[in-house]
């Protein structure tokens, strides 16, 4: 078992009696400008899963391509090797919370659409390990970050849907099987955030 999975288990075991994840979320905030960190996307995701704070700073001169152009690039690579799309996503979201930026709406909508239309249809016809599981789980993790910080329930429900759809005893065949734990942890955070918001409204 990887140290990350063991840490995640410990964190879940520390869940309080109200079902809230202890120590999670405080380190998260929706950025207002494009941010960067010293760590890459995957390392940053693991830290966010643990509710840790990421040292990030605004990018002074951003060379990041516009959201719509990035979606076009992902579309262009649809027929290509899945690793390319995975790399495109990890490079763009080295600071993963950038996915929640207002200007990233086109990318978020695109990822949600891919998950709920094409990936879902593929998953209903085939076994999950026939798909590119790294890309699937990375998309779910990124969507989960937005679900935790935004009021749009469609993102949370995509996580609900995959929780119901994915096999319980599934071991991802990809290069980064721990991304399953990342998705589940971030989903738990998103649910906790939603429940907290509902309680505050009441």
């Amino acid at each position, binding site marked *: 078992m990887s140290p990350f999975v063991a840490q995640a288990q410990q964190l879940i075991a520390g869940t309080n009696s109200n079902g809230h994840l202890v120590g999670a979320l405080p380190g998260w905030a929706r950025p207002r400008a494009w941010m960067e960190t010293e760590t890459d996307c995957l390392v940053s995701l693991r830290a966010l899963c643990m509710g840790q704070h990421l040292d990030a700073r605004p990018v002074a001169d951003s060379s990041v391509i516009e959201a719509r152009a990035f979606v076009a690039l992902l579309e262009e690579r649809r027929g290509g090797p899945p690793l390319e799309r995975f790399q495109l996503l990890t490079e763009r979201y080295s600071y993963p919370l950038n996915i929640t930026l207002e200007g990233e709406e086109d990318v978020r909508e695109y990822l949600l659409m891919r998950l709920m239309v094409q990936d879902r249809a593929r998953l209903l016809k085939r076994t999950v390990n026939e798909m590119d599981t790294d890309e699937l789980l990375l998309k779910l993790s990124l969507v989960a970050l937005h679900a935790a910080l935004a009021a749009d329930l469609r993102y949370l429900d995509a996580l609900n*849907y995959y929780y119901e759809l994915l096999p319980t005893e599934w071991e991802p065949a990809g290069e980064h099987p721990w991304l399953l734990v990342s998705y589940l942890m971030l989903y738990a955070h998103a649910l906790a955030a939603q429940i907290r918001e509902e309680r505050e409204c009441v």
Partner: protein
Amino acid sequence: MRIGILSGSLPAALKIHSEVRAVPDCQAYILLCRAPDETRVRSLFKHAARFVLKKGRGRALRLLAGGCVHLFGHPLDDPRTLARLKRLQLDMGLHNLGAIYRDETIKAFRTGILNPHIGLLPRYRGRSVMEWSLLEGQPAGITLFFIDSGIDTGPRIVLREEVDISHCGSVESAKAYLFNLNAIFFRRGLELLRAEDFSFKLNDGSGRRYYVMSRLFQNVVEELIKAND
């Protein structure tokens, strides 16, 4: 006006036919189509079985004899189907199929294809929209609009109306209730389109696209409906 009812089921098409024939100057044809995942033989067998087993055989026979029922053995976007559709010189199609239309199929109808969508556009596009409306505390309703090749993005809305579903005790019955109103909405839409002062409302794309709902949220919506019943 020559209308084509695009349907995968003869009894469902007959229901729409009997409603829209009341519209003046309206000549309605039933276009029995093949479901996308269906073989030609299976489609023929299904239509024949429904013809024998369901009510309305007499009417169906009269329509058949009058050349008002057309059976399409090939998929809708097949060139042979498109050629037949063009020969029929239809002004408008009425959507009653589980299909997404390509541009060529839509263009085979002079003014386009009307779709009774069970959600209020432009806000609710896509799947499970009745459930999403209720979850978000919004009214249920139906929007009759001319489709384009996108997902509920056709800009021309003919009729948009909230529908009271408070008497429905479940999600299933509420959806069935809304779907059953399709024939009435088609008739009302056709009547509106004949009016001199008619103008389209705009489906401006300002809404969101919704997707199939999880069982978790479906159960929440079920509880909401029961609480209102």
